[in-house]
């Protein structure tokens, strides 16, 4: 499927308020999941398929037309057994316990449930973020020492 076609599908989804779309034809199969909807599952710190941009910029007070469009953040491609680790607070993301220390995890690392994967510093407090289940760190989405917001996707993990 071409990028042009995928774009058209995404536009269609947002026009009709669709959250998820799966299409199969001769050319293959595609599954699209729109972001911004992950907040429906606030009770869970691990929410599906959304990455939020760090500190959204929007210089101009554009009226409503733009508002309806931007509702969804850029979706993250997630495999079936992959989950996102979200930031439980606003703060600064650190991959290691000290500037010269070895990072808690690297991409590809296998982690136990409850193992510290990163730190969020908020109000001079170091909050250790733990792996919600045993598995593998597939991707780290945030650079070291970057500010993150509540609910922002930090890492992609694979169950298993």
């Amino acid at each position, binding site marked *: 499927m071409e990028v042009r076609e995928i774009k058209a599908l995404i536009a269609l989804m947002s026009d009709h308020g669709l959250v998820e779309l799966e299409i199969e034809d001769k050319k293959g199969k595609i599954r699209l999941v729109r972001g911004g909807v992950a907040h429906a599952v606030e009770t869970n710190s691990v929410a599906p398929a959304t990455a939020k941009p760090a500190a959204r910029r929007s210089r101009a007070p*554009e009226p*409503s037309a733009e508002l309806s469009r931007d509702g969804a953040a850029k979706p993250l491609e997630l495999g079936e057994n992959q989950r996102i680790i979200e930031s439980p*607070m606003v*703060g*600064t993301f650190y991959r290691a316990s000290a500037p010269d220390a070895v990072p808690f995890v690297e991409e590809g690392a296998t982690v136990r449930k409850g193992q510290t994967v990163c730190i969020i510093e908020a*109000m001079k407090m170091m909050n250790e973020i733990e792996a919600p289940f045993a598995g593998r760190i597939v991707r780290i989405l945030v650079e070291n020492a970057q500010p993150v917001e*509540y609910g922002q996707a930090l890492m992609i993990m694979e169950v298993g």
Partner: protein
Amino acid sequence: MFKKLLVANRGTIAIRIIRACRELGIPTLSVYSTADKDALHVRMADESVCIGPPAAEDSYLSIPSILSAALTYGADAVHPGYGFLSENGDFAEACQRSGLQFVGPRARHIRLMGDKPRARRIMKRAGVPVLPGSDGKGVTELRDALADAKRLGFPVLIKAAAGGGGKGMRIVRDAKELERLFPVARAESEAAFSSRTMYLEKYLEHARHVEFQIVADNFRNVIHLGERDCSIQRRHQKVIEESPCPVLTPRLREKMGKAAVRAAEVVGYSNVGTVEFLLAPNGEFYFIEMNTRIQVEHGVTEMVTGIDLVKESIRLAQGEPLKLKQRQVTFSGSAIEFRIYAEDPDRHIPSPGIVSSHHPPGGLGVRVETALYDGYRVPVHYDPLIAKLIVHSDSRELTMVRARAALREYLVDGIRTNIPLHLKILHDPDFIRGDYSTGFLKRYEPPSNRRPVEPPAAKAS
């Protein structure tokens, strides 16, 4: 000049603060809960940060989350707006300790005025008239309340020492009613403010709620910007505010204004604030409380004085001195504000949902402060105030004519609003004459909502 100002609020006041910052050239950082990701203040600020889930305790009321956002994203000032953390002394103090300038008074002034019995004592000592009421630190036990009530004579008003927004407030007309309602009011206060301390005040029949806007700098200069009559209230919640007060004579205005300035002076207050009085039909007035923040109805004063109060609050927080002397303040015309609530006008219950179309009125002297837009979903988690319509003209008569036209023009589809109630009030002969008191709105209360403990205002004492 502030480098970046964090707006610790949402809705209309967040928009108002962002606009003021734009005029001053200060970059803004807005914070929001996940329920507000599509809110206008998120779009209008230069930067926005999500700080928590929908529940206010975990987002707009969470001091660590807001401070963390300010420090992480490099803000050096915090504007609290109204509601939420605006009158929380601990928040003001935490801001200062984190090196952030809190746009408002000092923490000790917030705490002092938040302790209503203490504020009463200080005002009494300073010669500002207060209503007869409980002395000392207030009462927690029913028998002390009964003793106070006997001394004052019924009817009395039960109030929460830490109160605000009408919570923990009850009018009682005899000892039996006091016995029944004192524990209820105390429980309400405990739930809302974690405080069992109450106090009693003599209840004044047919009184008007008249408040004075004051502005103070860090150098002990204090002026007032005239009054607002906020007597049109439902259950101690303001619905319509106007300036000038239709019954205030220039002499009385001067006297009350001086008392308001004195109230701020005796404590060394700084930044914007409001001194609330009850005005009796005989022209006697009494201090009720001081609000240590910008008020919802600040726009009314802005229209008649031409002074931008939100910009002023930011300027004063930057340590700038007052530019005006009292005699340089002039008042022009009449302004009335209508609070538009997302509520069923017949039953007075909230009406959240999607605003399918929003068409605000316009024209000369018509100002709309709102965070609504077409397709916006009014969340269930927060205050139902969705817009403020402020109408201004040379005379009260013309302002009312203009307001009727503007309210008829105002279209909000998809949810219900109290616009029909405003139109009814604008056709009420008593309102038109300016002849009203805090009990006015009871006549428009749906029968099922009427509280049996509060007889109609017409029953004079």
